[in-house]
């Protein structure tokens, strides 16, 4: 297994063995991510974070990951202030930044942009979201959260809830969960069902349900996503639908004791704040897990572990 120099563009390119290795390293990184232990393993290395689209968690957690390991960070989160606004191609931007850094993290509005970056850069490229395409580090941290909780993904009942049509995180997540043998439930309003081409790639057929109440007792992981208001032509329809798919204390009273609730965040009412104090809530932990997982990825692709 060679990680040094590897591009992380799509979750589909990672084998089960490679994912296990990432999680093994991530586990060791947890005390460093918490600031309880110090590390300098990436001292002298430079990470470039190229955010052509706004992001808070992803960018900050990558930067934290690099800083916690003693490395340096360059980059931008506002392309308007760069030469890109002068009409430079992405290929040229990448070629230049590649000369300044040891590893590149990119988020870009166009699908396939991370693949382009990986082709033009000599150094490893990590995709931090390309339009409606892939966001592999989010998928990895979601999977890491589930693995830490349950040990094995195989046989888990996982409900993907909310916007399954446009939400890119659920597409890659559904793919990898099915590869690892989870039972997948898809819970969404008819307007926001998972696209057929995504379902076609799943190893086993997921169960599509309209109503959370029908499956609440069986579910191990409630993976909730945001239903965006702009997807609905009629605001009344939006309010009706959004309410139906929200996680409340009352709903969880029927759930398994061991069930957990996850959300890629930001949430806008899909999970009632009353859930925060329940033992099921795992979304803040999940957001934290982004740091050790990204620390693991950076140190693996730079070949220091």
């Amino acid at each position: 297994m060679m990680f040094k120099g590897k591009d992380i563009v799509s979750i589909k390119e990672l084998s089960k063995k490679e994912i296990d290795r990432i999680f093994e390293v991530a586990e060791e990184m947890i005390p460093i991510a918490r600031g309880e232990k110090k590390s300098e393993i990436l001292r002298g290395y430079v990470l470039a974070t190229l955010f052509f689209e706004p992001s808070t968690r992803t960018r900050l957690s990558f930067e934290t990951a690099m800083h916690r390991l003693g490395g340096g960070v360059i980059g931008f989160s506002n392309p308007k202030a760069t030469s890109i606004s002068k009409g430079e191609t992405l290929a040229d931007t990448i070629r230049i930044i590649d000369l300044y850094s040891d590893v590149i993290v990119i988020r870009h509005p166009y699908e396939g942009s991370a693949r382009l970056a990986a082709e033009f850069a000599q150094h490893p490229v990590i995709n931090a979201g390309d339009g409606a395409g892939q966001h592999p580090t989010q998928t990895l941290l979601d999977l890491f959260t589930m693995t830490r909780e349950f040990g094995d993904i195989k046989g888990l009942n996982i409900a993907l809830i909310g916007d399954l049509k446009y939400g890119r995180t659920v597409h890659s997540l559904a793919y990898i969960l099915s590869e690892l043998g989870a039972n997948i439930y898809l819970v969404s309003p008819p307007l926001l069902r998972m696209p057929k081409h995504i379902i076609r790639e799943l190893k086993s057929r997921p169960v599509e349900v309209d109503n959370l109440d029908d499956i609440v007792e069986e579910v191990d992981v409630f993976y909730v996503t945001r239903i965006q208001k702009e997807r609905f032509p009629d605001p009344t329809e939006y309010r009706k639908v959004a309410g139906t798919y929200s996680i409340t204390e009352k709903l969880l009273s029927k759930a398994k004791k061991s069930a957990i609730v996850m959300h890629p965040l930001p949430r806008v009412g899909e999970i009632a704040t009353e859930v925060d104090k329940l033992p099921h809530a795992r979304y803040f932990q999940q957001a934290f897990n982004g740091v050790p997982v990204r620390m693991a990825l950076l140190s693996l692709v730079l070949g220091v572990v």
Partner: protein
Amino acid sequence: MDEEKTLKVQKIKNGIVIDHIPCGRALKVLKILNIEGDIGSSVSIAMHVRSRYGWKDIVKIEDRYLEEKELDKIALVAPTATVNIIKNYEVVRKHKVQVPDKIVGIVRCTNPRCITNQNEPLTPEFYVISKEPLIIKCKYCERDMESEEIIENII
């Protein structure tokens, strides 16, 4: 058998006969070969011709031969087609078109938000997911494209 059918349209001296085109696709074959208006040689089309396997279209183009890329394009439009190369009224070679495993530079991605459609120095590239029915996947944005969509986007 083919001899008898091809006689329905005139025999050609030199050129190509594209046979076994799925019914109704002959005009699309001409379109992807950029045959329109005056090309300086004669073109004959037979549509809805009875064959051993049902119905088919046939295209004959005089004094024209095909490049590898054009054969690949024909395979996308008419995967069952055979290309006969005619020299001095004789078939000198018969070529069954084949959908390649990788499609490079002959199809544009249908996804307007794909990076290959943004003026970057890239050649569009697709993996063939299934040949029957034809489904291809963009190497960059990973979007799937199917038959009609593929034909509409041949460069």
